[in-house]
Each structure stands twice: as C-alpha cells, then as structure tokens.
C-alpha cells in the first residue's frame, strides 16, 4: 500500500506514492475512497456491481489531482457508487486523465467528505511521484 491518511487540525488528508503518475493517481484514489467509505479497496472490490470510466482535463497537475478525487466524490453523491480504478492513464501535455474501473454501491448515508482541497497541496512527478492532499470533512 503506497498511501496513508494524515492528520490535520480540522479535517483529514492523504499522502500517496507511486513509481509512475498513473500509479500515484491510483493510490490516491484508494486513500480517498478509504476516507469516503471507511473501507479498503479489497473490501470494496467484494461489493463490485458494475464498471465505469472517468475522463478529465485540467490546467495543471495540481488541478488534475483535485479534479480526479472530486470526480470520485461526485460520482458517489450523484450515482451512488464508488469508482474503484483499475487502469489510470495520466497525460501531462495537456494535462488529462482517463481511468477505467469497477463500481461498488455506496449506500444512502451521508459521505463524510466535502471535497479534496488545494490547501497544502503537494504534487510532484519527479524525482519520485508523490502527492499530499488535504480533504475537507
């Protein structure tokens, strides 16, 4: 597992690592889904009911990260499923992302997450892909 949940005075956050940007974004989704659901990816995969995909564009890498995580949140709130990525392809010129994955129902309770934010945001692709995102809970 190349992610962890980090502490924040008012809310929560996540850090992720990867060998590639594709892996980094996949790991960040795992961390974010944990914050949303309280479940690991392996638990969510036991509840899979369908498939889906996500396509995004952004002005820069930071916006791409925030948009990616907020898209997962948007799908949970509007389609009532958690999107669990299996393939993620990140491009940097221009900045875009395409992901395919499986979907698991997210129930009717309120999600504890309001948004992935730009606060204290850190994203790097070199020397080793890493990101930190603070999440408004």
């Amino acid at each position, binding site marked *: 597992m190349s992610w962890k949940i980090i502490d924040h005075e008012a809310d929560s956050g996540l850090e992720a690592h990867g060998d590639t940007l594709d892996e980094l974004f996949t790991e960040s989704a795992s961390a974010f889904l944990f914050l949303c659901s309280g479940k690991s990816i392996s638990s969510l995969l036991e509840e899979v009911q369908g498939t889906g995909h996500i396509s995004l564009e952004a002005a820069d890498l930071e916006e791409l990260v925030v948009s990616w995580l*907020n898209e997962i949140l948007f799908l949970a709130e509007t389609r009532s499923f958690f999107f669990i990525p299996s393939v993620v392809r990140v491009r940097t010129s221009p900045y875009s992302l395409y992901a395919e994955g499986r979907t698991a129902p997210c129930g009717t309770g309120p999600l504890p997450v309001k948004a992935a934010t730009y606060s204290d945001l850190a994203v790097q692709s070199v020397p080793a892909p890493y990101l930190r995102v603070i999440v408004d809970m």
Partner: protein
Amino acid sequence: MRNFLTRIDPTRILLEKGAVPGMNVPGLIFADTYIESLLEGENALIQVANVACLPGIAGYSFAMPDIHQGYGFPIGGVAAFDADEGIISPGGVGYDISCGVRLLGSEIPVSEFLPHSEKILASLFSTVPCGIGPGGGAGIRKKDLEKILEEGAARIVRSGRGTAEDLERIEEKGCLEGALTSAVSERAVERGVRQLGTLGSGNHFIEIQAVEEIFGEEEALRMGIKKGCITVMIHCGSRGLGHQVCDDYIKVMKRAMERYRISVPDRQLCCAPIPSPEGRNYLGAMKAAANFAMANRQKITDDVRNIFIRFFPGRILHTVYDVSHNLAHIEIHMVSGKARKLCVHRKGATRAFNGLPVLIPGSMGTSSYVLRGTEGAEKETFASACHGAGRLLSRKEASNRTDGRELVKELSSKGIAVMADSLRTLGEEMPGAYKDVSAVVEVVHSAGLAMKTARLRPLAVMKG
C-alpha cells in the same frame, strides 16, 4: 509569529503588520489567555496574517475566539473588502456555503418531553434523511431546484412547509436577493437535487435542548425562549451543491488571478475583484447556494414539527432565528468615520447586528448558547461574532481517544440520548475535540460583540 502578537486588553490581541510579508492591515484576534494558550502551531495565526495581504481589505483581518486552521482563511475568520476595489474569495466562505443554525423554541416543558425523548429521537432519525439516494433525500426536479436557488426558504414555506413568521426570523427573510442560478454549474445542481432536506454528516446535527439558564430576561422573552422548556437546534448547510459551487469557483478564480495581476500567499485564498465577471458570478452562485441551505433547514424544520405535533398536539415549535456562519454579504459599515460598501466574508463566524440573535452550537454533550448582537460588534468587527467552539483536536486524535460506541455510552450516562448515522465518524466529534464553548462565548460577551441571552443543555441529539 508570536513576536508580532501584542495583547491589547483581556480579550483582544493585535497581530502586527509584518508578521508575514505583504500584510495590508493588522490582524485582531479575540482571545483571552485560555484561548491564546490554545493557539499552538501558529497555523491559524499565519492564516490570519495571510488574509491581511488580500487586496482591498478594510480594518483588520479578524479572528474570533473559536479560531482554528482552515483552508486559506482560518475558521473563525472575518475579513471585509471594499466592494469596488476589493476581492471576493470562495475560501473566505468555505465549502459548506451557508452552513448555519436554525433554533426552534417552544413552551413544552422539559419534564413533559423526557418521557418521549427516545421515541422522538427515533422518529427524527427515521424521518430526516442524512444522506442521499433511496432512503436519503427524496429527490426533486431540476426546475424546482432552480426555484429554490432563487427563492430560498420562501419557496418551501409557499409549498405549505412553514409560516410567514418563519421567514421573518430567518436572516434576510430566508432569501438572498441577487442569486444567479445561471452561475451554478450543472454538477452542483445534480448534487443538489438529491439532497434537499438532508442533514449531512460530520458536525451537523439536530439537537433537542433544555433552556437551562437565562441571562437576559427581556431578550429571551422577545425571542420566545423560556427557561425549563425545550428548544430544537438544527445545524446543517448547503450540502453537495454548496461544496460544488466552492470547488467550481476555486478553479475559476485560480485561472482569473493572473489576468487581474493578483498574487496570494496561499492558493486557497484565490480570489477575483468583486465587480469582475468572476466575482459577480461567484457572489451570485454563493447566494443561490445559501438559498438552498436556508431552504434545507426550512424543510428539516417542517419534518421536526411534524414529529413533535404527534407527541404534543397543538404545541408549536416557533422559529427563534436562523443564521449562517459561512457566508459573504455586501454591507454598509463605518470605517474611519466614513460609510463604506464592503463585502464581509465570515468563515466560521456569525453576523451579530445589534439586537439580532447569535446562535452558538456547542460540541456534542456541551451547552449551546443564544446571544444577541451589539452596536459594539457593528462598530468593531463589521457586526461579527464567533460561531461555535472551534476544534482543538484533529479528527484522528479525537478518534484515537474514543470511538463512537464509547461516546454514545458516555453521553447516555449523562442523560443525553444519541443516534448517529455513522459511529465511525461520531468519535471525531467528542466534546474534548473542541474548545470550551463557554469560554469562547465568554470572550465575545466580555469583548462586547454579542451578549449572552440563554444557555441550552443537550437532551437528545441526532447526527449524520
């Protein structure tokens, strides 16, 4: 940072210009020695200083005694900007636009309520949805949502779910004029249609309280708050619709700042000139989201009343007041003897105009307070006061100290019934995770910003 702090009096600390480079005005923090001792890590103070760097700021970058670290702006932060030359920032309002509090009063004695408390709490829990989807928010049509974005709580009242008296006791009569539905994205609308009338999670709640202490007899009488009777407090906001509006406009403002040659010390302070297209659109979308939040609380109020009427036929739960604590308003205030039109950002801070109620929810298991705004607040803080207790422990620290089940047992032993949608997040809201709300209230009272009127003790609470 501490080197730039100067205590002015028992409730005020000045944060001098120069604490960070580029401050246009000083900071003014409302804090006694107890609150001051809690300002560890200095992150919140840096945020107060950063806000002071923003273009067109008037007066001070204020921090209320419930201050803690936020996104860009601190929670408990107040900043006003010239309406013609200053900026508007989504970070100065927050993701939960118009998160706020509705207080309902009654003449139902606590002694009559207590035998029914568990049944009433269970009815609330099964009736008021916390989330979305089947069993969650009922779902409304897009065109109905658009009407709500334009008309706010008034739309809900007109559909038979409230009274004209409710609207008289809601901030801005339940509708911010000038809402721009065209400035609200499809994504925000899509999130909103399934969430009207839902509570949300985290520190959102419905709490039934006993009026324990009255500090201002006349004011309490005017508000309809009676010692020994119950009140109901509803704390929630604009849900996913508001969160999406904030997220949308953070992107818009980030891209716009270069064009307006604005640089900010923290990207969550991204902003645009108020008269700019971006500024006007955000203001319009924010007002629409606020209207949704007020409509949300009106719908939940109706649900609460429908439950109480079954147990107490003929007894009314009247609206004491409904006020937001995450919002920006265009207001006229005196600055250095001149009347100026300002955009006052209150993020985790409540409007405290002279004579109007200021509602301060406590943390779980602790007292809540009703205060009233003062002339002092109008003169000093652009009519602003605190909004709650302010977090002390991170969510992780709090949940390390207790879990949801233990917390329910602990509160039950104190005579407070709890039902929660998620025990997982309940532990994060333990009382010790927040500052002492009584101490926070004492600071605004002693500073003359808002005067204590009543203290409310929790009896039963429903959390998302």
